[in-house]
């Protein structure tokens, strides 16, 4: 129990906590059940990826950046590949653009459904959680069929994509889309009509339009507050110039609105995927990109499932980048959530935290251990066992 001078009670959430699927630390000062202050401490899954890119070549970096996040791995690789192609002045073939977009949209469906399940679980609605995750398997299996992997699809190479889409796969995807569309409509209805669940989501964690705009919220979090910020619409990249998407917004700004926006985005993705499959262009899958990228710097932005993903890439003319800066969508959304936590009930905090769809491994990217032997922070299995025996003697 920590009590400070004003007799305030601090409730920690994390680093290990059932509400957080990844480690992160939040401290809430509470007065009874009402939150009066909030701070964050990140970095528990920092892996040094930004630094690591500087010592690897451009091709290797695609994969290391893809592993920033498991859920939105494709968009990371895509943002990087897109930036490098811009630097190298390479135009990728239309079929590659279409397939990239296709996988990105499938991934968006997968991410949004994952989030909806987790958020339902935070609200104690386990049945909804189980159902949503069961149906998410459909899209996971489609991705596995297309790329051979359920996460970290590795579909991008510099200059295009690795995998083609064949006719039988197109049929499979269409079948899957029909199922997903039906189920998403059903879930949309549930989250907007179920009384007990609305008690946990309606008018909770409201962020108004002005706050969202100034605090720099991005993605569905911003759109649920009525801020039209969607890179796919603002700066069409990949195949979006040919097949534009609609930016889905809601004005309520509460948790319910975030559910509604995400579920509607799933439906929009389904529509887009069908359209892309109808008009899949013929042609090559990839073009050659030089191993040495010409000097220059570029900003590459794509819309990840959680919002705008920002890449700053600088090349010094060699086969390794000079600087790769990644700003993931979760980081600006944290700022907005921590600023808005005050005044809410403690019981609502997990749901509000989860409401932005946080991805901790996305915003943590540092610390690398280079020398295992001389570092007492790294323990071997044998050492750990020995320590355990000593401890309990």
């Amino acid at each position, binding site marked *: *129990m920590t009590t400070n001078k004003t007799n305030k*009670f*601090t*409730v*920690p959430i994390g680093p290990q*906590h*059932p*509400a957080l699927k990844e480690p992160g630390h939040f401290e809430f000062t509470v007065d009874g*059940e009402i939150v009066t202050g909030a701070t964050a401490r990140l970095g528990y899954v920092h892996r040094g990826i930004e630094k690591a890119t500087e010592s690897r070549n451009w091709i290797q970096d695609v994969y290391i950046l893809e592993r920033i996040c498991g859920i939105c791995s494709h968009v990371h690789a895509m943002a990087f590949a897109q930036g490098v192609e811009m630097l190298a002045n390479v135009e990728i073939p239309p079929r590659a653009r279409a397939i990239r977009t296709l996988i990105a949209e499938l991934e968006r469906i997968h991410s949004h459904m994952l989030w909806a399940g987790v958020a*339902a*679980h*935070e*609200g*104690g*609605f*386990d*049945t*909804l959680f*189980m*159902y949503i995750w*069961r149906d998410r398997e459909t899209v996971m299996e489609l991705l596995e069929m297309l790329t051979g992997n359920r996460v970290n699809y590795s579909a991008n190479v510099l200059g295009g994509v690795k995998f083609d889409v064949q006719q039988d796969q197109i049929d499979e995807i269409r079948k899957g889309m029909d199922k997903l569309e039906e189920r998403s409509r059903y879930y949309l209805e549930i989250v907007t009509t*179920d009384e*007990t*669940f609305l*008690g*946990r989501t309606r008018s909770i964690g409201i962020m108004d339009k002005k706050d969202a705009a100034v605090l720099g919220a991005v993605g569905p979090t911003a759109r649920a507050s009525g801020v039209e910020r969607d890179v796919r619409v603002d700066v069409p990249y990949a195949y979006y110039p040919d097949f534009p998407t609609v930016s889905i917004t809601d004005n309520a700004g509460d948790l319910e609105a975030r559910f509604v926006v995400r579920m509607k985005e799933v439906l929009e993705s389904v529509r887009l995927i069908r359209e892309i499959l109808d008009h899949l262009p013929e042609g090559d899958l990839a073009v050659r990109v030089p191993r040495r990228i010409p000097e220059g710097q570029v900003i590459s932005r794509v819309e990840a499932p959680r919002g705008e993903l920002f890449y700053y890439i600088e090349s010094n003319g060699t086969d390794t980048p000079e600087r790769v800066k990644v700003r993931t969508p979760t980081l600006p959304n944290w700022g907005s959530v921590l600023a808005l936590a005050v005044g809410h*009930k*403690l*019981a*609502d*905090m*997990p749901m509000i935290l989860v409401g932005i769809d946080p991805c901790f491994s996305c915003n943590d990217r540092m610390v690398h251990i280079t020398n295992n032997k001389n570092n007492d922070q790294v323990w071997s299995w044998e050492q750990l066992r020995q320590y355990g025996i000593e401890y309990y003697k």
Partner: protein
Amino acid sequence: MIKVTPLLALLIFPGGLFLLNIGMFYEWIDRKLVARFQNRIGPRWFQPLADTIKLLAKEEIIPEKVHAGLFTFLPVFGMAGALASALYVPLAGFAPSYSFSGDLIVVLYLLSMMTLCLGLAGSNTVNRFSLVGATRTLTQLFSYEAPFMLALLGPAILTQSWQISEINFFAQDNIWILVTQPIGFLVALIGLMGKLELPPFDAPEAETEIVSGALTEYSGRGLALFHVGKDIELVIGLTLVSAFYLGGLANPLEFVLKTLGLLVVMALLQSLFARLRIDQTVGLWWRLGALLALIQLLVVLVF
């Protein structure tokens, strides 16, 4: 009807061994049903037993800054309360081992002992999650207790007796009280869910907010006792509600059918709702639950 000798009653049937086993069996049914409602497979039949044995075999860690005596004995008290209440209810359709006029009140208090012990156990530790959990447990106790009692009062007034066995006989001879007092039945059933902290009333142990609530610091034996105590409470609660509202319990077959029927309804209710916040729970009980129970009582009194 057969009467069982006291010592046997305490150790083997209906107290002791029988109750432990049937408690764990009912827990399994509950978990299995919820799993099937959620389109999962669910645990195998021996899972609750295996959990209990594993927990009993494990080291019990007494955290720092707690009253060690309280920490050790609270689970025992809680479980003793639940076991003792078994002596007064028509378990498995047999006549209760002990019976006196007014035993209904005693059973209700014995059942609350478990919850009180939980609350005390939570506030005994310095863990923040335990403390918040304990507060919520006790808050919830004050919210469902009155409506639950009022709901069980209906049949008692109808029988004009406070003796469980007499109410049981009365229920057997007459039309199911469920038909005449549907509101009372609903309040009693949902009150039972509140008592057992089942969803949607699981705010006191909401894992995504406060880990495991009052039980966060418990491990090994203490945790096992609390879990088994809750299983026993589940059986006794089901017995009470079905004896009162579902036409009494005359023989083991009726007992099994009626309590399991109730359990199916409870499992269904568990999987249908999102968790209520503690303020919503309190609001629901006092604004709606208590009011409904009172109306039911008035109806009973007038007619």
